């Protein structure tokens, strides 16, 4: 075992997209059918705004979506 973590429920999720460079922030998880999880990053930040600003910098946000989801910290 290398690593792992427990995600908080989908009700805590926020989805970030930056089509045409204009940021879109929406309540809720990334829930499109026939799409899949393409990867993940773990960032240690103080709040959601900081997490969203990282998500916006992710190249995937411009052609797909980045779901921001907190993880449980024991």
């Amino acid at each position: 075992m290398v690593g792992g973590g427990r995600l908080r429920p989908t009700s805590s999720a926020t989805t970030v997209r930056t089509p045409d460079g204009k940021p879109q922030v929406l309540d809720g998880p990334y829930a499109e059918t026939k799409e899949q999880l393409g990867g993940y990053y773990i960032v240690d930040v103080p709040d959601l705004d900081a997490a969203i600003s990282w998500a916006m910098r992710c190249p995937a946000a411009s052609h797909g979506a980045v779901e921001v989801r907190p993880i449980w910290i024991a």
Partner: protein
Amino acid sequence: MPGESDQQARETAEAVARRSYGKLVAFLAARTRDVTAAEDALSDAFAAALVDWPERGIPTSPEAWLMTVARRKLIDAVRRRRSGEGAADHLRLVAEELEAVVASKPQIPDERLSLMFACTHPAIERGIRAPLMLQTILGFDAATIASAFLVSPATMGQRLTRAKNKIRQAGIPFRMPERADLCERLDSVLEAIYAAFAEGWSDPAGTETRRRNLAEEGMWLGRLVTSLLPDEPEALGLLALMLHAEARRAARRNAQGEYVPLAEQDPSAWDTQLIEEAETLLVRASTMGSVGRYQLEAAIQSAHVVRRRTGAADWAAIEQLYDALSAMTGSPVVAINRAIAVAETRGPAAGLATLDALADDARLAEYQPYWAARAGLLARTGEVEGAEQAYQRAIGLESDPTVRRFLEQRCWGLRGSGSA
């Protein structure tokens, strides 16, 4: 007498609740991000006050008393509920409480604006932002908010709980947004403030203290936002709009309590001071070079109240302003008002034609002002039968008994003047 002090304690508690509720919630929630826990702790504190104050007298600073009790309740709840996860928060709270005790002046800082930005964060579902602000800043229960937003109390309760959980679990911050996001974020805040004001304004007789208070709280929040963000023209515009509306509160009913439409109101019953203040704000906003919805709506109010000086509303300006507003919002409600203005500038037939162009919008079938406007214009073009039918639709859709009586009288008057 115990009965008397009981009554006094209750009144004081209620007065403090009205004035300080949001401030206390904001202060507690900003430190834990747990709005529900802050509300629960406060409601416990208010309950404790109603037991303690009649017996031991009302404390010199009721707000500080409530804060001390609420903090204690909050710490108890944190200790009970989340022993592992909440340990760090808990310790910080304890430290802060000690700090507050050490500070001799128990002055509670006003962090309502931060709470407002948290409630209207883009990660919160749009439709729940205004209700959430009404609950956290003004302390309204889910049932009251539900009735204003036309959903069931259970649904509203669930959505509010979900939004508060989101704030806590997703880590939505309690602070001012960055400069780049401010405009958009502020718009959500203004929208929610206006929703609160409109709810209070819809009770012109002022029979329900809490609703009347809502209009005052709306203006208060508007003033707070403009004092903290003095260079935001739309915040100034919204405050001007609310002050204009408030200035005419007394004139909306005559001595017998009957409804008086704007065109028939006595300008001497309008509150000159509020109108002057609104005009000053609007002029200040207009120098900032960025027109928006609230400034346009306030300017329309302003064009109506010139009647107090010139004897007539500036209908040409009103039509132009509604044109601009209609282009900006695409709202059918704005379009109805524009049709009424057209009836004044180009005659009732032209107004009616403008209204006819909207008839396809299904939303208007259930909208009282559409039918009342239609009835009024049909009456003026001599189509008595059509006017009667439209008045009946309007009467059936209106819930306010005084407005309904007004519409009924207009409807009866159609035949009275025609056949007599």
